């Protein structure tokens, strides 16, 4: 998982696959952690309530993915180089899309964890310099349980469509062992996947109905529809994977404020191909090399106007460096509109 954790454990979006639209909303029984816990204790025998203090699983777990670098093919220059973004920053994004998730153990069935997961996604549209919610946010509440080991019948009866199995067999038919930590990780991944599906659903809806640019937190390659849309711009703030090696990496890390790298072509496994480049939003004086560095993604269909388009989008992104997204710790890379989306979901999605 390459999401970036915010201060309270909610996670930024990283779309990975296009799936059917997730069911919006949740019944009253799962509207909150406490409601879900009460419901489980009331309906499932032998369930112990978790008293862990409400710390989200996202905050407890460490990133499994190790930081690494990957070489990428150039789409603009033969050799990656630094390019000054010409012209003044111009605000052009009409909307900002982001999603959040939160997972928490609400009970134990013996040693088996029952996880309450909440995911949501929203588009914040900018009208007259003010951000408002576009259409309706998507929110999903689920109980994630290892049904291979837990009392499946009782859980299905109690939760019906709001239950997800964290022990689904893999392609070769194997089932994960009932290691509690492993089961918690599986639950968290499942919540993350659902959150991504919600984001994709909203992004595709925007791309289908609107033409104005939308900034999507994270990459856009998880959906073919979005990856091919001219209005979608992905902004990746975390850099556990850097698409530059050797001299190219040095050039990327040495970018100055208002400079971008040459456009490269990336196509991670299972994702659609997109064009991407690094852009420095802020001066790095007194900070590390990743300070203020974002990686932008756009569709590949814009060739051969790659340079003009990358410069144009870079100007849009530079314009979003104010106002600051503080107090979010990622404010050096985060657009205020993305923070607004996260704050909206935090306020409405428990």
């Amino acid at each position, binding site marked *: 998982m390459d999401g970036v954790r915010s201060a309270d454990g909610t996670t930024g979006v990283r779309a990975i696959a296009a799936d059917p639209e997730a069911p919006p909303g949740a019944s009253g029984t799962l509207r909150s952690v406490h409601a879900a816990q009460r419901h489980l204790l009331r309906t499932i025998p032998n369930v112990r309530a978790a008293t862990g203090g409400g710390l989200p699983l996202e905050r407890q777990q460490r990133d499994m993915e190790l930081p690494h670098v990957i070489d990428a093919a150039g789409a603009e220059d033969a050799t990656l180089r630094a390019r000054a973004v010409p012209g003044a920053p111009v605000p052009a994004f009409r909307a900002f899309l982001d999603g959040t998730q939160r997972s928490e153990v609400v009970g134990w069935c013996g040693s088996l964890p029952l996880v309450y997961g909440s995911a949501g996604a929203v588009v914040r549209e900018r009208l007259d*310099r*003010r951000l408002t919610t576009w259409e309706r946010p998507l929110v999903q509440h689920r109980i994630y349980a290892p049904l291979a080991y837990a009392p499946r019948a009782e859980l299905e009866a109690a939760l019906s469509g709001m239950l997800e199995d964290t022990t689904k067999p893999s392609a070769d038919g194997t089932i994960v062992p009932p290691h509690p930590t492993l089961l918690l990780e599986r639950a968290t991944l499942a919540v993350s996947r659902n959150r991504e599906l919600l984001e994709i659903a909203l992004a595709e809806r925007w791309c289908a109905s609107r033409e104005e640019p939308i900034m999507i937190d994270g990459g856009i390659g998880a959906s073919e529809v979005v990856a091919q849309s001219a209005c979608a711009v992905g902004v990746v703030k975390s850099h556990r994977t850097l698409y530059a090696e050797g001299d190219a990496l040095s050039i990327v890390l040495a970018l100055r404020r208002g400079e971008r790298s040459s456009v490269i072509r990336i196509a991670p496994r299972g994702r659609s191909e997109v064009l991407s480049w690094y852009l420095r939003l802020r001066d790095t004086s007194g900070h590390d090399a990743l300070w203020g560095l974002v990686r932008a993604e756009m569709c590949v269909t814009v060739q051969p106007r790659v340079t003009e388009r990358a410069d144009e989008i870079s100007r849009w992104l530079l*314009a979003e460096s*104010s*106002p*600051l997204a503080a107090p979010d710790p990622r404010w050096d890379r985060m657009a*205020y*509109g993305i*923070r607004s989306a996260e704050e909206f979901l935090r306020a409405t999605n428990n």
Partner: protein
Amino acid sequence: MTAPLGLVVATERTPNTPHQFQFWTAIDSPVGIGTIVRVDGRQPVEGHIPQVYGVVTEGFSYTDLASPLFDVLGHDGDPGQSAFAPTERAEVRLYIAAVLRHVPEEPLQPVPMGEVFLATEADVAIALRMDSYLREDANTGIPIGLYRSGGMDSAIYLDAEFLVGPEAAHLNITGVSGLATKTSAVEWLLASLFAHFPVSKGSVAAVCFNVKGPDLCFLDLPAELEAEDRAMYETLDVPCEPFRNVRYFAPFKADNVSLNTLRSNEELLANVQPLTWGLREVLQFAEVLLNRDDVDAKADALIDFIKERVLDRDFEDRVLKEPHRVRSFADLEAWFRDLLSGLEDRGDEHWRTHHVATIRKVRNRLTNISTRCAGLVTNDGHTSDLPWGDFADRAVYVVDVALAEEDAQDLIFARIVSKLREHLERRDLGVTHVVVFVDELNKYAPADGPETYVRKMLLDIAERGRYLGLVLFSAQQFRSQVHRRVVGNAGTALYGRMDGDELATPGYAVLSAATRTKLATLSKGQLMVRHPHFTQPIFISFPRPAVMRGRDGMERYPQAKDVPLDVGVLRQLRRFDPSLTLAWVQDVIGLYEDDDVLRALHATLAHAPDNAGAYFRAQFRKIVGASVAPAPARTPLRALPDDDPYAI
């Protein structure tokens, strides 16, 4: 149904209570400090959806910035760049409201989460409990002004039962000087009271003490009002006209012929009457003027003796050379002179247990009163007074003491209020309720300083007046400097623009910082109202009074200059008979001393006869005019004989 204005919010740290709640609104909402709102609860309680009414007392505005430093960084330290930021920060308008009323009243619970609406006119009536006294069958509402919010005007009413009594009574108004708010508010409220005081509750008149300037000197003359003011009069159903029945009373100047008032222009004298008292009236309130440190118990005893045994009686004593009947200060002086002379002749030091030194001291103090209160106290014993027993309903009696000496002011105030109280107790004043308006209350009833007769009287009115129908409308610049029991007993309190230092005193600690700020910036024609039915202060607007402003009146009707005795006499007599001329007056008084003229004038004014000229002339004793003696007839000398032998 109107859209909600805001939503109630509460957190564990800042929960809502039964008396206070908070809500947020859109940035462009018309909510402000003093706005009345209604909260509709979401969950029924005992079958009723609770509704809570509140008034906004505090407001907050903030963004999602954790520190101002982030904004500085976001703009690279250049405030000019803010205009280029593509997005405005999320901003919240959070308000705190004090609860005015819960419906239903029980069970009294914390304010529920719910939608917040701008109060409609009907909501305002419910929120302020005006519905209880604006019923068709028992309407005791007295309009005080308009509550304005969100483009809506709502008439605000005081309850006559709590303004004039008997449930509560009295009104106090405070505010900085110079904005004409205090006097204007009282003039407006009197007009409103006269227009709306229910006939079923009796009759009402007002006695206004004009203690400074010409503010109250033109209550019977119209003002030029703007359309907005006229509209307010119409909305509040109060006639936009000056007071119909106003009478002015003022003492004379030291010359005893010119009235000591700013309303002395000859065109306005028709309803201006001298206020003069004789010995009897003054002695009843001698302690107002006598210094307690100077007049001890022995002197008191002699004064009481004079009041009970000497005044208005035929008094004889072996020490006195002749019988005395003391009716005036002149008579009293003659009595003292005779008494002391007799004691000296006899070599006695005591007279009827009173030591001669005490007698000399009392003589000195009492006879000095006529000097200290010259113009008010007459030597000849004639009085010209308020129409005790004949007060008219909806009439205003203005007693102008603005130019009088301080002692005279105290005496006037003490005696008039005492007489009002006496007559109201006996139910023979002519009206059942009297509003007494006193400005500069911090002078007459200060919070500290020596106990004075006037302060005792004000305390007495404040604490017991409502049972008699004696209502005090008082005003001052600094409420904190007025005796607490006087302002504390005022059921209704009005506040105009306040001074910052005054607002910093403990008496205003119950108000929120925002409310105090609003008080410090109120404009002319705005007031904050506290009334027993209103559980929180309410801000209102009131129209300019429909009477001529003092400044305008002084420009149009300048004060009369001091005039010679004959002109002064003519001016006074013309009130009764405009046909009199200066030549006629000069003819009548030409032979007499000034004292005789004044005695005749005071007698005429006191009796107000139909034929004033004749009555005035009749007051003079007959004096045969000097005439040139005819020259004796001369007898012509006899012619001498030519042959007179003795002729030279």
